C-alpha cells in the first residue's frame, strides 16, 4: 500500500499527469487494436473508460475524495462518455447495438442474459434503496474556517500589538534593522528536502543575528510545537493522530505562506481557545502560547517556521 501512496504536495500535478497518460495509452491501444482488425466495440470502450475513471478517483488518490465529489466527477465523465459515443449517428448505433441485442434476445445466449438482467435488476435496486433508507449514522461533516479574520490588534503579556504595523523584532540584518530581503535570502531552499543554504547554517558556531535567532526559535519549536506540528513542520507530530482538526501543515503553500507574520503571532499567542467561533475554538487543542512562552520566544518561533519551510511571510503591501 505504501508504494501506491501519492507524493504529497505534488498530488494535483501527478494526478492530472497520470490521467492524461492513461487517456493517451487508452487511445493508443484502441487505435492499435483497430489497426490489427480486432477493434473493441464502442459499447465496451465506453464502459471500460468510465469504470477506469471512477476506480482511479476512488483508489488512487489519498487522502480519499469524499463520495459526493466523486459522484460529481463520475457524472461529468459519464456525460463526456455519452457525448463521445453519440458524436455521430453511426457511432451511436454501434454503441446501442449490444443493448438492443440483449433486448431482442434472438440467440440463446442473449436470452439467458436478458432473463438474468430481468431478475437481477429489481433485486439489486431493492438492495440499494434498502441501504439508502437505513438510518444514516455516518460521521457528520463540519466545515471550519481555517484562517479566520484576525483582530486589528492583540494584547500579549500586557503589551498591545497592532497587527498591521507590528514587525518581528528578530527579522533583522547585521545592522539590527528590520530587513526582509536580508532574511529571505537566508531561508532554506525551496526544493525537495528544503535544505538550508550551505552558507547559512544556524548551527554554525559563528552564526550571529538572524541565523542565531532562527536556531533559538528552532530550539523552542522542538521543545514545544513538534509534538503536534511534526519534526518537518508538516502537521504530523507525535500526538497529531489523535486530534481533529489535525494540526496545521506549515509546508503546505496554503498555510503560513499565505499569511502575515503578525497573523501567526496572534494565532500562536492566543491559540485555539482564542479563535472566533467560525474557527471552532472548542475543538482545537492548540495552546494559547502566552501561557507557556514569552513574547520574544513566540516571535523567534515564528521566525523559525518561515526559515524551516522556506516561505516568505506575506507583507501588507
Amino acid at each position: 500500500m505504501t508504494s501506491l501512496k501519492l507524493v504529497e504536495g505534488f498530488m494535483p500535478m501527478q494526478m492530472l499527469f497520470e490521467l492524461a497518460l492513461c487517456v493517451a495509452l487508452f487511445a493508443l491501444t484502441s487505435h492499435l487494436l483497430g489497426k490489427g482488425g480486432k477493434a473493441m466495440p464502442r459499447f465496451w470502450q465506453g464502459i471500460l473508460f468510465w469504470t477506469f475513471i471512477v476506480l482511479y478517483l476512488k483508489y488512487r488518490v489519498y487522502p480519499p475524495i469524499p463520495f459526493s465529489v466523486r459522484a460529481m466527477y463520475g457524472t461529468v465523465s459519464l456525460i463526456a462518455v455519452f457525448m463521445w459515443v453519440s458524436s455521430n449517428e453511426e457511432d451511436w448505433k454501434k454503441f446501442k447495438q449490444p443493448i438492443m441485442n440483449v433486448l431482442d434476445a434472438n440467440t440463446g445466449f442473449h436470452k439467458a442474459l436478458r432473463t438474468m438482467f430481468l431478475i437481477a435488476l429489481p433485486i439489486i435496486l431493492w438492495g440499494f434503496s434498502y441501504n439508502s433508507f437505513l438510518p444514516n449514522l455516518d460521521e457528520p461533516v463540519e466545515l471550519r474556517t481555517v484562517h479566520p479574520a484576525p483582530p486589528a490588534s492583540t494584547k500579549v503579556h500586557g503589551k498591545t500589538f497592532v497587527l498591521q504595523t507590528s514587525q518581528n523584532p528578530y527579522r533583522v540584518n547585521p545592522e539590527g534593522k528590520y530587513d526582509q530581503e536580508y532574511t529571505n535570502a537566508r531561508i532554506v531552499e525551496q526544493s525537495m528536502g528544503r535544505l538550508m543554504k550551505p552558507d547559512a547554517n544556524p548551527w554554525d558556531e559563528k552564526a550571529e543575528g538572524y541565523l542565531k535567532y532562527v536556531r533559538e526559535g528552532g530550539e523552542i519549536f522542538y521543545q514545544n510545537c513538534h509534538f503536534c506540528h511534526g519534526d518537518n513542520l508538516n502537521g504530523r507530530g507525535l500526538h497529531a493522530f489523535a486530534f481533529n482538526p489535525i494540526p496545521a501543515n506549515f509546508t503546505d503553500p496554503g498555510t503560513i505562506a499565505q499569511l502575515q507574520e503578525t497573523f501567526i503571532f496572534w494565532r500562536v499567542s492566543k491559540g485555539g481557545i482564542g479563535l472566533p467561533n467560525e474557527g471552532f475554538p472548542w475543538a482545537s487543542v492548540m495552546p494559547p502560547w502566552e501561557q507557556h512562552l514569552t513574547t520574544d520566544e513566540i516571535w523567534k518561533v515564528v521566525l523559525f517556521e518561515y526559515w524551516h519551510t522556506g516561505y516568505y511571510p506575506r507583507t501588507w503591501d
Partner: protein
Amino acid sequence: MRDLRSKSRWFAVLIALAAIVMVSGSAIVWTSAEAQEGGGVPEGFKKEELPALPSAEMIEAGKRVYFTKCVWCHGVDGAGDGPAADRLWPRPRNFNQGTFKIRRTASGELPLFDAKKPIPGQNDLFETVTHGLPGSAMPSWEGILSEEQRLQVLSFVTTQLVKDRKFDDKATETLTVLQLDSIKPVPSSPESIKKGAELVVDKKCIECHGVEGRGDGNAFNLKDDWGFPIQPADWHKCWNFRGSRQDPYNVKNIFRTFSTGVSGTPMPSFADNTTVEERWHIANFVNSLCERDANGEPLPIDPLTDKPKINFVIRSGPTEGDISDDPGSEMWQKRERRIVLFGGQITHKPRNFVNRIDDVWVKSIYNDKDIVFLFQWDDRSKSVATEKLPFGPNQVNLEQYVKEQAPKTGEPDSIAAQQSKYTVYNDAFAFQFPVKWQELPAPIKPRYLWGDQKYPVDIVKWDASGAVKAFAGTGWDQDFEDRDDFTEKLKVLKQEWKDGRWTLMVSRPLKGDYDEDTKFEMGKYIPTVFFAWDGHNGDAGRKMAVSAFYYTVLEPPIPKETYIYPTLIAFGVVILEGWVLTRRANKKKGKAL
C-alpha cells in the same frame, strides 16, 4: 472503510493462494546448505562482506541535511541530546556508540548500511529513515527527503557521528545477515499459532511482555543501555512496533526483530537458541495477537498517521430488558467496537508530553432507561494510590503535585529518566457530554477540555479506587462541581485490571435533570470527549490523555418504511421492464410487417 475491507479481502485471497502453493510445493522448513556452513553462524544467517564507506562528497552533503532536519533531536554531536531530547520518551538515539535498534544483522553487529544501495531488505538504516520508528518521535522521511538525501545524511551519521565503531573496520566488525527474503516462512495456521503460544512461555518472552502480551511483565524495572527506563512492546498494537516499517501486520517484521533482537534494549536476539521454524511459530503467534476487526481482518491503517483509522461515531445499540454486565456475553460480543485514540493533554499546564495510554476501545448499549458504556484500554500497570491522596478527583489545579517537564534539564532529569520515579496516583477514566446540547446554536460545542462558563458539560469520572462520580465542568481551570443526585444513579457494572488491560463498564440514565444532566435522544449526534489518567505516569488533574471530539449516537430501531419503499421501487422496476419489453416487441413486429 468498506473499500479497504474489500481490498484486504483480496489480499487475504492472494495470501491464501501463496500459502497453498508454498505448502504443496516444498517442505516448509528451511534446511538449505547455508544453515550448516560456517561455524557459529546461527540458522537463517549468512556471512557477508563489509560494504565500502561512502564518498567524501556524500558525507559533506549529508551534513547539510543533518543540520537542517536531524540536529533538533539528535544533537550537534549525535549524542541524542538535541533541544527536543529532554521532553521525549523514548529519547532520541545517541549515535556515538553505533547502537541501532532495527537490524537484519546478528546481535551486537552494526546495521546494514551501504550508501550505494537504497534497496529494501539490504539497507537497515535507509529503511529506518524512510519509514520512521512508529511509537517514537522519529517520523517517516519518505516524500520529505529524496532517496539521495536520505543516503547522504546516513553517510554523515555513520561516519562522523558514530564514534566508537567503524563501519569498514575488518578487524573488529563482521556482518552476519539474516536471509529474510530467501527464508521460506511457515504460513500462519492454528497449529503454528498454538506452537508459538507454547514457545513464548518456553522462551520466557512473557516474563517481560506479559501473559497476554500487553507489555505488562516487569514493565518498571527494565533499562536501556544508557540507563533510561524502557517498556516491553504491547503485542496487541503492532502499529506501534518500532520495526513495523509502515507494514504492521507483516509477520516478517516480527520474525526479524525476534531473530536479531533490539540493540541497546533488554530485548535479546533469539537466533542462537531457536530454530528458524520455531521463530516463525512465535512470529505468527505474536502477529495473531494484534488487534483485528470483527472478521479477523487487519485494522485499516491510516497511511498519514500509521495508526488505525478513526471513525468519530460511537454507536450505541438498542436492546430490550437488562443489559448484561459481562463483556463476554453474546449481547456485548455482537456489538461493534470503535477505537478512540488519545494524545497527551498539551494545551494547558501541566502538559503531558508522554501519554502512556494512547487508545481505548468503546462499545455501548442502551435500553429504555439506561445507556451503558464498555471501555477497554491497555495499561501496563494497575495504579491505585497506597495512601490517601491530598486532592479529590474533582480538583484540576494540581501544579503543586503534578509538575510539567522543563524544556532543558539534561539527561538525569529528563522526562525519560523520570519514567519509573513518579508518585503513583489512581488510574482514572472520564467522558463528557454537553449539557442541554439540544439548545446549542450549531456548530458550537462546549470546549473539549471541560466546557466553559457559558456551555457547561456533564462529566462522569471513574477512578481505580472504585468511585464513579458525576461532575459539572465549567472550564479547563475550574474544579469540577459535584452533581450528587446524578452520582447516585451511576453504576459501575464491571471494573477489572487483568494482564495489562482495564475493562470498565459504566451505566448512566438516559435522562436526568434537563438543566444539569445530558439527556440522550435516539439518532442524535451527541459530542463526546474521553479522558484517561495513568497513575504510574503521575497523571492527575490536567496531566492526562485526551481524545478529539467523538459523537455518541443511539441507533434507532429500523423503521418499517425501510422495508416498504424498496419493495415498492423493485415492483415498479418490474413493471417498467415489462413495458420496455412490450414496446420493443411491438416495434419489431411493426418493422417486420
